[in-house]
């Protein structure tokens, strides 16, 4: 059964037709890389999947349940969908530990002790156990992004959405974040990531989705599609990236 399903999804910003009938089916355990030019609708697609943006036509389901932007639905959705942002969006007035413990205590109503155990385990997983009491501003970009991953993982999501999560990082910090993602992929978590890291998409991903002008233009196995693109648009895009 599919974990995330999009059926003929259309999205407009005013007159701007941004998603033009997206069909996409993602199974549990897949690592899907979404690539494409700036403005092709990649972020919008992710934001529709987690209920941050409203779509006008078609349907999206996550784990069999329909996605809407209704507050109550989004909150239920948050239990199965985690999101990592380009700018980390850590809460600057809380320590790293508090950032990770917040949602489990408030949303899942876990006890403080239980939430702390989870938080420490998740921070351990991203290699930042010793930063539990630090404030985000004291961390490097790569470390902040790993905290953001730990924060999302603490809600034990079924699927993790990542929107260019290494794009705001200095080049030497990209590796540590990708390593964490690779580890998660090995553990079988479902990942949907918008990325420019072609090597990651090829080596770790199970599928590449190329978006162009609001449509899924081409998709398939990473090695095949990246070494042997079928459409001119993807050829051109690959030429621009490499």
């Amino acid at each position, binding site marked *: 059964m599919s974990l995330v399903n999009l059926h003929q999804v259309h999205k407009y910003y005013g007159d701007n037709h941004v998603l033009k009938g997206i069909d996409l089916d993602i199974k549990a355990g897949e690592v899907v890389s979404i690539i494409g030019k700036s403005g092709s609708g990649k972020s919008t697609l992710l934001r529709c999947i987690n209920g*941050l943006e409203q779509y006008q036509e078609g349907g999206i389901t996550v784990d069999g349940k329909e996605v809407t932007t209704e507050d109550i639905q989004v909150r239920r959705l948050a239990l199965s969908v985690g999101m990592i*942002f380009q700018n980390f969006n850590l*809460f600057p007035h809380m320590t790293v530990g508090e950032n990770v413990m917040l949602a489990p205590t408030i949303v899942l109503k876990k006890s403080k002790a239980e939430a702390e155990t989870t938080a420490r385990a998740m921070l351990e997983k991203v290699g930042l156990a010793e930063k539990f009491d630090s404030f985000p501003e004291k961390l490097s970009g790569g470390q902040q992004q790993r905290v953001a991953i730990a924060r999302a993982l603490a809600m034990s999501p079924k699927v993790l959405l990542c929107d260019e999560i290494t794009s705001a990082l200095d080049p030497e910090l990209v590796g540590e974040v990708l390593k964490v993602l690779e580890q998660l992929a090995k553990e079988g978590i479902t990942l949907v990531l918008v990325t420019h890291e072609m090597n990651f998409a090829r080596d770790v991903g199970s599928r590449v989705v190329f978006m162009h002008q609001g449509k899924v233009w081409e998709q398939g196995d990473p090695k095949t599609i990246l070494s042997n693109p079928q459409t001119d648009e993807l050829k051109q895009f690959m030429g621009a990236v490499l």
Partner: protein
Amino acid sequence: MIEFSNYDILRNLLFATQWTILLSLAAFIGGTTVALTLTAMRLTRNPVMQRIVKIYVELFQGTPLLMQMFLCFFGLSMLGYEISAWGAAILSLTFFTSAFLVEIWRGCIDTLPKGQWEASRCLGLSFLQTLRHIILPQAIRVATAPTVGFSVQVIKGTALASVIGFVELTKVGTMLNNATFEPFKIFTLVALIYFMLCYPLSLYSKHLEKKFNVSR
């Protein structure tokens, strides 16, 4: 005619200062409470609520405080509601304070990145939970300095209550002047007392601003 010694003048002025402070505090507390409610109303994405807040702010920012006080005092009595000068002063100063605070706070909340709302939403927090745990703690840090700064305007605004007969510092100053005909001495003293109330608050506000800018 009664003779007023310098000691008498000062004693009367200082006694009246208590009422100025009390009125300022009441207006500030009232204004803060109303402004909090209005801020919450504005933050809901309900257009009707937002419209109400907008009209409220425009109404009370767009008319002189003195007119608001007159309307509260004389207007309400004409409508059959007996209201004391003290009540009318608190009421109108509450309107005035809240209309400005809600705008000041809006600015502070808007400086927070949209990503804070989104991250919180994606973690499953409700609107009110996001407000309480994410937005307010950060907004309060930003808002403290301008809010303390604005309290100076409230203190100065209380002087207008003298016009509707509330006996506070300015009113007592006027009364003493009528009795002694020493306007220079008396109003210098009155101004000095206002200054001593306001200046520390201004300084404190500047200090907070600096502290906040450093810690950012």
